[in-house]
């Protein structure tokens, strides 16, 4: 049962990672990347590593996600009104 969950989680991680790179729209890629980070947090929980889970959620996903979204916003604004 737990093995099935782990396998499902691992496959979702891979799928999410793949879509992050392959999806044509950039904003969607960033949202997928943040989802990927949340799945990573789950994976760390499964690996009994709550410290990493906390850090991944706060730094790896939260801060990186905010940085990426901010950069995306700026780049898009520049393109709209050069």
């Amino acid at each position, binding site marked *: 049962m*737990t*093995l099935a969950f*782990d*396998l499902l989680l*691992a*496959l979702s*991680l*891979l799928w999410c*990672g*793949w879509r*992050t*790179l392959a999806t044509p729209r*950039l904003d969607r*890629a*960033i949202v997928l*990347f943040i989802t*990927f980070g949340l799945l*990573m947090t789950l*994976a*760390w929980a*499964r*690996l*009994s*590593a709550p*410290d*990493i889970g906390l*850090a*991944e959620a706060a*730094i*790896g996903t939260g*801060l*990186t996600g905010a*940085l*990426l979204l901010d*950069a*995306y916003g*700026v*780049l898009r604004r*520049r393109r709209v009104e*050069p």
Partner: protein
Amino acid sequence: MTTGFVFALAGAALFALGVAGVVLIGHLLRRILAFNLMGSGACLVLVGLAQRHDVADPVPQAMVLTGIVVAVAATALALALVRKLHALTGQLELPDDADD
């Protein structure tokens, strides 16, 4: 098949996906995403493989904490460079090396 193994294998695949992404993708923001996938993959291998008998090992866990902080530092620097490049040239891809 243990939890550790499952995620170590997933980590190996993510690393390969990330490297392929950095090599193949021209768009710089996506390259940064790919680099992050690569880093996450290496971290999963580090913890997963060490915990392949499903007993928690604090040493690789502490190393991964270090790895995550280094990754966010590198990501922030990369984004700063990309934004500067875009502000200067309007480009989001690296041009061919002009002097060759």
